[in-house]
């Protein structure tokens, strides 16, 4: 399976025109000029598929599901046509020693050239014992694989930012890929799960231009994570008009009003769901009537509750009653002290005489 991509595709019944069409759409999604779609198609058709090692750590396989759930040759599904996936536990037929062998072979044969895809966070607690494969800890495996990788792609919020395993109280001491790998380029594709086409875009960019796409300060491709869900949301006009659904079954919810008050995290979530949508462009959470959870943001799990609006307290206020007591106490104490001081001043009052009015000596 080492020929040009276009041949692989052709064997699967994907015509050149279909491929061109995908590339045009992909370029459009990545906010590249239309001509880039063409260049991408040319470059990729002839490209040799890079070797990819996919390491799963503390994860739920949701990310893999997200990429593999497309039944027909869609944009999302193309990921697997674009690469030579040499190690992926969930997908590969081999198991045990054979699988380990495959990984070692790929790492040796493509040293310095392979792409490392990681999903899941890495537990550091108890020397990484919370998650091991073949008796080796995740952190150990990651460091070994990263050493020979050309670049690392952290797929899903767990790999990118620690995700749910890192949520309070983070029992396993989970961290993200970028907390461990410091000397390789890392692309974060967060989301729980991430949007598959983002991965396609990153790979297409890598194959076409030989480099990683432009990233934001959180290591995410700007093309997909450049704007918030809120800014691209079709319900945005309702926010601006002050029309909000107050419950999931009220008139506002039925009329498709803004879900801000129901806890939508769209305003602080950078992702492309509102434009790319899910399930082949069928729908996306907000369109289905549920607010955004903010799953592509670091620590989204601990951001104050999915059903709490952004402007309300993240935690119930705990100090207020105590503060009121202390304040009242301080006030009353001060008041007593003041009154005592005043009455002392009054008691020690000496009648003012004419002599007091004279200039002090």
């Amino acid at each position: 399976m080492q020929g040009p991509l276009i041949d692989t595709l052709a064997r699967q019944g994907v015509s050149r025109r279909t491929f061109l069409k995908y590339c045009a759409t992909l370029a459009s999604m990545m906010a590249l000029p239309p001509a880039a779609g063409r260049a991408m198609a040319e470059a990729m058709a002839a490209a040799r598929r890079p070797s990819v090692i996919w390491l799963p750590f503390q994860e739920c396989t949701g990310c893999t599901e997200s990429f593999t759930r497309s039944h027909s040759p869609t944009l999302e599904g193309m990921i697997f046509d674009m690469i030579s996936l040499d190690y992926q536990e969930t997908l590969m037929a081999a198991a045990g020693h054979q699988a380990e062998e495959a990984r070692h072979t790929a790492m040796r044969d493509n040293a310095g050239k392979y792409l490392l895809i990681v999903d899941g966070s890495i537990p550091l607690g108890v020397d990484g014992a919370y998650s091991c494969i073949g008796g080796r800890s995740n952190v150990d495996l990651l460091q070994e694989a990263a050493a020979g990788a050309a670049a690392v792609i952290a797929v899903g919020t767990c790999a990118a930012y620690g995700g749910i395993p890192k949520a309070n109280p983070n029992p396993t001491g989970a961290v993200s890929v970028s907390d461990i790998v410091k000397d390789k380029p890392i692309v974060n594709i967060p989301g729980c799960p991430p949007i598959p086409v983002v991965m396609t875009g990153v790979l297409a960019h890598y194959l076409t231009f030989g480099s990683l796409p432009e990233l934001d300060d959180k290591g995410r491709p700007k093309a997909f994570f450049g704007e918030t869900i809120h800014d691209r949301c079709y319900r945005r006009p309702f926010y601006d008009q002050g029309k909000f659904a107050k419950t999931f079954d009220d008139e506002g919810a039925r009329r498709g009003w803004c879900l801000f008050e129901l806890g939508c995290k769209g305003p602080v979530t950078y992702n492309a769901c509102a434009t790319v949508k899910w399930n082949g462009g069928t729908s996306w959470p907000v369109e289905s009537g549920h607010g955004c959870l903010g799953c592509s943001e670091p620590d989204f799990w601990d951001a104050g509750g999915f059903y709490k609006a952004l402007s309300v307290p993240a935690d119930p206020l705990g100090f207020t009653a105590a503060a009121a007591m202390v304040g009242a106490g301080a006030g009353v104490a001060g008041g007593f002290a003041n009154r005592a001081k005043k009455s002392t001043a009054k008691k020690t009052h000496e009648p003012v005489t004419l002599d007091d009015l004279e200039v002090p000596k």
Partner: protein
Amino acid sequence: MTLDVIPIHVANQPPGEPGLSGNAPPLLREVAEQVRRLLESGEPSAIDLSALPLTSADLDWLQEKLGAGEIAVTLQAGGESTLDETACPGVWWVTHRNEQGAVTSQFIEVAFVPELVKAHPEDVAIGLETLAFMISDHQGDAD
């Protein structure tokens, strides 16, 4: 049971169609510029409509202005695509759909023939091989 039975109706547009944003008319100038370039140097170009802040009213307006030409190409490749010539020859309205029929991208392409319509030499070569097979098969049959 169909979707309309579900009593939740999602309004994709706020009540009262958002009108024209005013972003469409300048595109006509852009198209004209590209057509001029095509005539002068033969260089084709395209405008990615989904990358521009256009309302659906804007798109309708634009499509209506450009009108319909003589050629309408339909491409069946991973969903339907339409490549329609507008009333201005050399200006094509290209719409790509996925297998579910949803629009995935939309372009105005300025070219004598849209790139996607042209057959790729490698594919033509493969076609030639197929033809050669057919001929030899036929000869074999005739023998």
